């Protein structure tokens, strides 16, 4: 769970790194190998993007009250 802006920026940076990693893997590996290796990274991206969306869908005042 992301609790503040610093963690938000870190999560966004990690997602970008994983995107770039997969773009590079797609260029440097065969189709079969890419398909096999990409799945867990895609899941990580999905999970972290979900956390980003959850944080951005809530106002910070609400988090403080909660």
């Amino acid at each position, binding site marked *: 769970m992301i609790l503040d802006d610093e963690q938000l920026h870190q999560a966004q940076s990690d997602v970008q790194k*994983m995107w770039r990693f997969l773009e*590079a*893997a797609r260029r440097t590996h065969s189709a079969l*190998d890419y398909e*096999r*290796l990409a*799945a*867990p990274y895609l899941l*990580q991206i999905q999970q972290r993007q979900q956390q980003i969306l959850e944080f951005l869908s809530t106002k910070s005042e609400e988090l403080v009250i909660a």
Partner: protein
Amino acid sequence: MDIQLIPLDEFAKQFGASTPRRQFLFDQARLVISLLRATGQVKRVFVFGSFVSEKPNPNDVDFFVVMAEGFTTSHLKGKIAEVFQNEACRIRYGVDLFWVTEAIGESHILDMREVFSRDRRQQHQPILEIKI
């Protein structure tokens, strides 16, 4: 980012002995390492996540594996092939295995090491390299 390089027997002592769950997961992880070695092309194995934390009963073992440039899974069969298919490896061995080859370039490998040094809550988590 400095990462501790740890021999397999030391890794076993530190993380694979204190509870039955850890003993079980370490045995599974050792099997995966032996299958990776059997390819003759494994270069680096990083371990991160709850197994290298103080948690007594981790869910699984997280590996980030770097294979030699030119390595391909296309000719692999059976148990060795399963290791490179994340879902099969996780179900069979309890090891969540992320892999890539050196062809991707060192900068991307360093980026992923950095990403894996934080958990899903963005908190710092240990990452070690097992001496292969």
